[in-house]
């Protein structure tokens, strides 16, 4: 590549204005981009192909891009071309296996390019020379898989150090947790975290796919109950509950736990009411549930027991757990996507994770149902949800020593708060799905 990387990327600014909003990971969807600045650009590999690491400021939001430059990109890269650079083409390099394979070499070498540090975790011996491929699932970041060995998540919107996903993984790894994918390496500069590599669990399937396979089996049956069909998921739900409880215990053991007086919950209650105010203003269908919701939130104010708080997963649902041949694994400890980094870092009640998972079982149960489904199918889905939520809690209790359902008032408030959040999210992003949280509210 003949020009300096910064100039090259700057000359792409116009193309980027069109290209960025079309990306799945672009935050401010549906809005027009006005200003695109290049904060920084570093050459990671020169020649043809070349690889440039760039930080872009798009209307005040920072994005990480890996830009490939080739004179004659092969056909499978045509769909990700950003624009032209003289005689060459600039494209999204995360789709280019050849260039991405080079990242593993950078990690192995402990490279330092223009202030970006590629650092292995202590005691990690890397297998090198592996093929690289993008993972190819819809996600808010971009992940690259190396052979059957490693997965590198490139944060599209890199945040400041320390990164919660990295820190929690390290803490859990220190206590030998079997419920995580081991941390392998980190890409960062002195201020920001760009990437996090973990062991790739090649045999894994997502919890969501595993659960919905079971629901599909039940709905095809018609006259059998959830506990009677071959695809019964209760055993898995229970094992999942055990895994989540174990992660909570490990997080408490390594990062500490604290018992707080019940009045500390008032703050949380205010947040719930605040969210409800905002969402009812936006989604009128929510109004009919308002009295029930407010009463459930306020019930928390009357709790007299102190509550343990600690580091938790923070965004737990069936899409954040993987079933492997040796058991369940939790991934993506970045925390609640909507929260501010400072709030994400806070310690919280582990019941929030439980609530998240319980809501997710409900989602899985109703995901396959259409808007016009009959009573029979709705009854089956409800059964599936009830059965698996109960099994999850039983499994959790068998490890934690206490059943989350014993904290009925708090658990219910957390769950309803989550449902309110879901109503807002679905209303904005997937209007067809609003019925799932609304149906759940109707049932309570």
């Amino acid at each position, binding site marked *: 590549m003949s020009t300096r990387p910064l100039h090259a990327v700057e000359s792409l600014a116009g193309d980027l204005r069109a290209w960025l909003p079309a990306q799945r990971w672009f935050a401010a969807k549906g809005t027009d981009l006005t200003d695109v600045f290049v904060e920084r650009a570093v050459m990671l590999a020169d020649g043809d192909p070349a690889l440039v690491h760039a930080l872009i400021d798009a209307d005040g939001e920072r994005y990480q891009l890996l830009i490939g430059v080739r004179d004659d990109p092969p056909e*499978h890269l045509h769909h990700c071309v950003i624009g032209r650079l003289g005689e060459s083409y600039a494209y999204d390099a995360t789709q280019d*296996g050849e260039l991405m394979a080079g990242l593993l070499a950078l990690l192995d070498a402990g490279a330092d390019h223009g202030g970006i540090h590629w650092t292995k975790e202590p005691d990690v011996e890397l297998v090198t020379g592996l*093929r690289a*491929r993008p993972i*190819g*699932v819809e996600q808010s970041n971009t992940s690259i*898989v190396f*052979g*059957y060995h490693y997965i590198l998540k490139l944060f599209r919107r890199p945040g400041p150090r320390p990164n919660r996903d990295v820190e929690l993984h390290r803490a859990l790894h220190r206590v030998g947790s079997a419920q995580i994918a081991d941390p392998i390496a980190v890409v960062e500069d002195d201020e920001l975290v760009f990437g996090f590599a973990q062991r790739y*669990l*090649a*045999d*894994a*399937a*997502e919890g969501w*796919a*595993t659960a919905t*396979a*079971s629901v*599909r*089996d039940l709905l*095809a049956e018609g006259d059998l109950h959830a506990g*009677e069909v*071959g*695809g*019964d998921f209760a*055993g*898995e739900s229970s094992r999942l509950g055990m895994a989540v409880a174990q992660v909570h215990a490990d997080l408490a053991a390594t990062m500490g736990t604290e018992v707080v007086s019940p009045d500390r919950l008032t703050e949380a209650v205010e947040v719930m009411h605040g969210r409800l105010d905002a969402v009812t203003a936006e989604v009128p269908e929510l109004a009919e549930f308002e009295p029930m919701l407010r009463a459930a939130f306020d019930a928390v104010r009357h709790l007299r027991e102190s509550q343990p708080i600690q580091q938790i997963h923070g965004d737990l649902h069936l899409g954040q757990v993987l*079933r492997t*041949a*040796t058991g369940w694994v939790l991934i993506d400890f970045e925390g609640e996507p909507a929260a501010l980094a400072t709030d994400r870092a806070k310690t919280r009640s582990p019941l929030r994770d439980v609530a998240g998972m319980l809501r997710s079982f409900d989602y899985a149960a109703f995901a396959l149902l259409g808007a016009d489904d009959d009573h029979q199918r709705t009854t089956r889905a409800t059964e599936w949800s009830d059965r698996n939520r109960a099994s999850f809690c039983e499994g959790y209790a068998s490890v934690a020593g206490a059943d989350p359902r014993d904290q009925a008032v708090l658990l219910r408030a957390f769950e309803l708060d989550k449902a309110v959040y879901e109503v807002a999210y679905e209303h904005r992003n997937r209007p067809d799905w609003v019925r799932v949280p609304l149906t759940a509210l109707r049932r309570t």
Partner: protein
Amino acid sequence: MTVHDATAPDAALGLEGIPHTGEALTADGHLTEPQAEDFKHARTVPQDLLWYKSAVFYEVLCRAFNDSDGNGTGDLRGLADKLDYIQWLGVDCLWLPPFYASPLRDGGYDISDFRAVLPEFGTVDDFVYLLDQAHQRGIRVITDLVLNHTSDAHPWFQESRQHPDGPYGDYYVWSDSDEAYSDARIIFVDTETSNWTYDPVRGQFYWHRFFSHQPDLNYENPEVAEAMLDVLRFWLDIGIDGFRLDAVPYLFEEEGTNCENLPRTHEFLKQCRKVVDDEYPGRVLLAEANQWPADVVEYFGDPDKGGDECHMAFHFPLMPRSFMAVRRESRFPISEILAQTPSIPDGAQWGIFLRNHDELTLEMVTDEERDYMYAEYAKDPRMKANIGIRRRLAPLLDNDSNQMELFTAMLLSLPGSPVLYYGDEIGMGDNIWLGDRDAVRTPMQWSLDRNAGFSRCDPARLYLPAIADPVYGYQAVNVEAQMNNTSSLLHWTRRMLQVRKEHPAFGLGDFTELGSSNPSVLAYLRRHLSPGAPEDLVICVNNLSRFPQPVELNLSDHAGWVPVELTGGVRFPPIGELPYLLTLPGHGFYWFQLTPEEGEGP
């Protein structure tokens, strides 16, 4: 000297006029025993030391296969008459459950003379004939041998109880009290209350791990070990290709232990193996030890020596897990057990099976899983037996041909040598109204002639009635009809055995599970490298769900290679950098060979 009184050691055998143990006694009180030299020996099959690693086994009950003399019970000559069928099917080795002289109080596993054949099955000469004819067709034969105990009718036991000071006085485990070895569990809790039984003749207790009519041999006595090695030699000299060693964990006892898997038991197995290796190379020992794979691997012996105990051992948990995986539409019950299966010595091989003459054993699953399996596969309480389910493959799978094919395809492609059960190749049914485990031991269904073509006898004389219900009865399900129909399960099974034979990867290759984001799809790679031959790479993809499923496989390590479907030879699109997308019909499966793209490479 010939003895004919009731206390004669051979009195309980019922083998007058047939060579047997204890026909005479030597001057020093030893029983004379038939010797291999007294019989003709079968001609041998071409030498191949590792044949068992890629062989397909076929378990056939002599009683149930073919009746040559019209007495209602199958026999060795009858079985020999059907060898052409077995050869046509493509089976490499027959496994015959015990055909020795026996009072038949435990299905022939209660052996009363190791050197004589049960008269209703024929004679040693008939066995030699069967073996010789099988070998002529390239088919090997192994049989069960029970090392741990004999029937109480065995002349050894009769001598032992009557002459405590005679040469057999120490052949069994005798004691004045019933207190020793109290940590050993009682296996048949339904019928036995103790592992000791009092013998009024000798006035002492004898030890038995199984039924009280099956006294345990005393391996502490070196003469017993030597006598049992001679039993092995007797059949190996005649030409048999190996033994399935029944109930191996229990040979030795030791105070303060559970008397299972003791080091000295392993030492004796090493001795057996040495006899085989030194004197009869190419014959095999197959261990039956119903335990977790991590414990069973002990029976392969020292991995540094490539294994120096049994060549093969059964993998028990894989079978119930396969049924569970399909019912759950999830690969994890299988993935999990394979992940927990340790690697085995170079010379060793697993024996894997879907069904056999015993019930579908559920000892290797958790209580929760057992309840689940009962609920799913044994809806009627009569379908249960001991800790298992007494059903054949077809009725277990609701006679669904897609599922039968899927299960068979997995059996033939997962790591291990597959063991088919007679009749499953035509989808035979069971009769749960018959007692004990007889439900799955009914006559082989050859044709729609009388008695399913199994016997010319009066139907009332049959050892068990042939299945006659409208779905599985012999009028609907029989070999002749399926032979004439090339789209039958029988032809399909034969074709699959042929394909398996063409690819060393199935028997000899290593195994790598290929994950995918679809939990209902089980995919794996079998790969065999041998010097001088091209690498054999086979990919197997199984849809465990009844619904059609897509799957994306990460095959980019083989970018540029072309998958060729193995049953039809159809070339699929070449593998590229992107995940390889396949769609499978409900309960569908694919076997592919990966071949380098045409014009490229070797």
